[in-house]
């Protein structure tokens, strides 16, 4: 199998969401979401628990179907032809709150699995790629260990490396630090800050406001399945136009 890459269309939006709504049964989780994210942009999504942040980024990644609205990723309609969707999906990596490493595979196997089976690289090539990204997240020396033998922070770095090995153009993070001990939170945030220097598009659900201030191009506040406020971090943290945003930030102890 040849390594195929769809070129990013001239359209410079990584993600375009229009009027996206989603229901779990009768409960509306997402209510007419509109959102444009440019290629290379770093976006932080925050909001109270249950506001639909995870659901939104899981929709972008096709982990959740949605009932109405439109979603384009790199200009490709995500409810369109299956082949195109599959191709675009490969360009979206995801890092989960609970790492979701494959416990029966070593760190190296976790990293080469996707490149070998989906991107069609040979084991040799895949291992080179994996070596590169494991070094990038500073965890090369653990390559032959199994996930169960690593600390939470190390596991999350492996999970980031695993996502990077697919060489995605968009990286989604769903609360990547909230299952970690405070000491490890910093190592993950540092890794993410380091990644942010690349041209990759990053969409992070997180409540680490220090990270948002430092890295984000825009901060999005969600509540009750709706986007309530979007702004540049310097403005967002100084003046909130919406009462709910203000309350939310006041309740964050940071």
């Amino acid at each position: 199998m040849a390594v195929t890459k769809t070129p990013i269309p001239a359209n410079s939006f990584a993600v375009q969401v229009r009027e996206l709504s989603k229901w779990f049964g009768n409960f509306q989780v997402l209510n007419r979401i509109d959102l444009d994210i440019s290629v290379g942009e770093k976006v932080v999504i925050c909001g109270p628990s249950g506001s639909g942040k995870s659901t939104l980024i899981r929709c972008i990644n096709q982990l959740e179907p949605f009932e109405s609205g439109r979603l384009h990723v790199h200009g490709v309609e995500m409810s369109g032809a299956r082949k195109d969707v599959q191709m675009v999906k490969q360009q979206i990596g995801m890092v989960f709150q609970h790492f979701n490493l494959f416990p029966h595979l070593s760190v190296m196997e976790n990293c080469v699995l996707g490149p070998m089976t989906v991107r069609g690289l040979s084991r040799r090539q895949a291992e080179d790629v994996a070596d590169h990204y494991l070094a990038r997240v500073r965890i090369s020396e653990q390559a032959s260990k199994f996930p169960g033998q690593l600390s939470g922070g190390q596991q999350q770095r492996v999970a980031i490396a695993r996502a990077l090995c697919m060489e995605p153009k968009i990286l989604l993070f769903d609360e990547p630090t909230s299952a970690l001990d405070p000491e490890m939170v910093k190592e993950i945030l540092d890794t993410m800050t380091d990644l942010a220097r690349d041209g990759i598009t990053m969409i992070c659900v997180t409540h680490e406001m220090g990270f948002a201030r430092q890295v984000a191009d825009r901060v999005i506040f969600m509540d009750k399945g709706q986007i309530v406020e979007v702004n540049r971090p310097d403005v967002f943290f100084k003046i909130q136009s919406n009462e709910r945003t203000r309350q939310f930030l006041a309740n964050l102890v940071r």
Partner: protein
Amino acid sequence: MSSGTYRPEPLLPLTYCQSEPHPPAPPPLVDRGCFNWLRRNLFPNWRQSLLSILIFSLLAGTAWHLARFLLVDAVWWGDTGEACRPSDGRPVGACWAFIADRYKYFIYGSYPLDQRWRVNTFFIAGGLGLAYLLWPRAPFRRLGLTLVIVALPLTGFIFLSGWDAVGLPDVPTNLWGGLMVTIVVAAVGIATALPVGILLALGRRSHLVIVRWLSIGLIELPRGVPLVTVLFMANTMLPLFLPTGLNPDKLVRALVGITFFAAAYLAEIIRGGLQAIPRGQYEAASALGLGYWKTMVLIILPQALKVAVPNIVSINIGLFKDTSLLLIVGIFDFLSTIETARIDPRWAAPTISTTGYAFAAVVYFSFCFGMSRYGALIERRLSRDHGR
């Protein structure tokens, strides 16, 4: 218990700051001698000691009776039942001469003499396959495992029944018998039941309604009736489902029955394993872009099967023992050959039946215990390989 009056520990200061860390120390020594082990585990106090002695004397009595019957009073040589009949008041134990005389029948049944090399070849191939399975650092593990567990029994079956095209004369299965039938049926049963069980388990969790219903039917039907019924049904009803003219062999029909029976149980066990896999594993696989089959084969099934190994081994042990029911549909398995031989008038003697059954018990036990140990070995290997 300590005696004397209670003296409080000296109080600790309320605040404390370590000036120097404690150096690491070796763990305290524990008595590991044999004598200490005995005392701690069998004779810690007089009540337990009494119990231990009682149980030991019961065991020793039984062991002595068994040893006397099986070894001391046993008859080892002889050509007819005459050798095993008690004369001049001498007690007669197991008649091993009978087993020695008929062992070929117990192994090959009535398989033609000049074709028995095929059975031997099959046994040798099976032995090599087993050795490969036990080899801890074997190369090509995944391929080898499939070959030994799935391909070997199936090719073995064809090899034994014959194939005119390659010059192997047909040996009709009504001539098969004995241990070879038991082993072939169990091996082919395991080889086919495991994949079928996996497919049924996946089918039962499928989003496609038709697939799900079909799987539920194929799981619940054999599970809801005794194996004997399944065997009868396979024997009489299977030809009805197949196109006319295609009349499968009796052994094949029985095999289909046994396979579906075992597969139904395996499917439920594997489904239990599948349910133990957290949703995050599916999501991580999907986020990497893996499709359904790749997700299942590479991510989900290895973990689910690992959880299910002890139960899968139990089902396979059950399948091995259930082969003795094949007698009911007229197939001569190992136990039936013993049944036939023990009423042979040439070997009429009082302990023949007991000897036959004792021999059967030893053979069944060695196979089943072997499978059980192999299962334990797989469990140990898997847990070591996964670093826990």
